[in-house]
């Protein structure tokens, strides 16, 4: 990364879908700032009319990327948090993808009428139980406390961001 590379992350002033990107930019020691565009006033200025948006600036050049999962994977690769081995990478991505599905199911549970929920697939409670079990299972075998290997990886960052988003928001929905 050249000395004059900097990043702008555009999102709402929320944890939401941007937390993984924030953590990766921080862990990657990037020169970055966050913008909170006026919404919906600035919607049409965004490439896909949605947020988050990542802007990478190098000298005069600007490169723009959208879609929070693509942004996270790009930053993780750029800053070396992804294994080079594509099988190991796929195992980490699998967890992240499942986490996105749990978050989506959480919002479906809040917003979608009960009788339509069944048609969408496994519900929030089932998916949450399953991903927690998976995280615990992996961590049982971990001697260093990381999900994979002996240092912080993309999977650790995205898993942390997942719980950070979900725990405060979902407490009113918890069954215990």
């Amino acid at each position, binding site marked *: 990364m050249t000395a004059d590379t900097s990043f702008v992350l555009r999102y709402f002033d929320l944890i939401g879908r941007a937390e993984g990107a924030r953590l990766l930019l921080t862990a990657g020691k990037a020169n970055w700032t966050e913008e909170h565009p006026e919404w919906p006033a600035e919607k049409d200025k965004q490439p896909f009319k949605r947020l988050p948006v990542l802007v990478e600036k190098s000298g005069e050049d600007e490169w723009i990327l959208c879609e929070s*999962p693509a*942004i996270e994977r*790009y930053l993780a690769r750029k800053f070396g948090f992804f294994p080079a081995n594509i099988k190991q990478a*796929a195992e980490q*991505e699998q967890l992240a993808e499942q986490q996105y599905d749990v978050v989506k199911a959480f919002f479906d549970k809040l917003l979608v009428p009960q009788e339509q929920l069944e048609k969408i697939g496994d519900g929030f409670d*089932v998916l949450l139980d399953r991903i927690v079990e998976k995280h615990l299972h992996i961590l049982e075998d971990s001697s260093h406390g990381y999900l994979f290997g002996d240092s912080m990886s993309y999977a650790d960052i995205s898993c942390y961001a997942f719980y950070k988003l979900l725990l405060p928001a979902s407490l009113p929905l918890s069954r215990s």
Partner: protein
Amino acid sequence: MSDSPRYTLRYFDRIGVAEGSRILLTAAGVEWKEEHPEWPQEKPNQPFGRMPVLVEKGRNGMNDFIISESGNIERYLARAFGFMPANIQHAALQEQLRDQASDMFSAFIAQLVANPRDKEKEAQFDNLLTKLVEVQTKQLIANGNNGHLFGDQLSYADIVSYAFYKIIVVGMVKRQANIVEVVKPKLTPQIVKFIAVVESDPLLSAYMTKSDSLAAVVNRPTAQL
């Protein structure tokens, strides 16, 4: 050499979100087979209780490599078989398109299952589809209108973008009878050409001869470029 394929794709017997993976496995030229596990009986036997699942047989005594999540399977196959660019910015631009197409499909499902009909959800699907068509068309034109989104050969982006149109326009007809009339008018000539070019790629001929044609559904007699 073993007598069964190295790759197995587990899914339901329908187009669904496995289509991108099917096409990638075909394009890769590897031997693969599909399994349709009894459902929901075989749910506990899947890593995340869901499908699709890709099983790659381990070699030399290694364990089988098993992964879930359609987007993840597609990216793994694309990287394993050279359909994803090595440059991470180029890869990210391709992945962005797939993620956007996937969001569009989720919005389609949300409006499909809404009962009664939900105008807001229908508008959301319409907006995402319109935007996706606009972005893809712009990219097709910028790439020289050769029927490919990037470069001049079949890429990951070509395959997954084609797959999402097929999932909706061919795969969902039984669940939403008017879907062709909804989607087809929105497709630009560049996208119609793109669909035809992907479908006729020599790498895919083994699969396309056995599968429903998306090009046949979206072609218009006057499509000219």
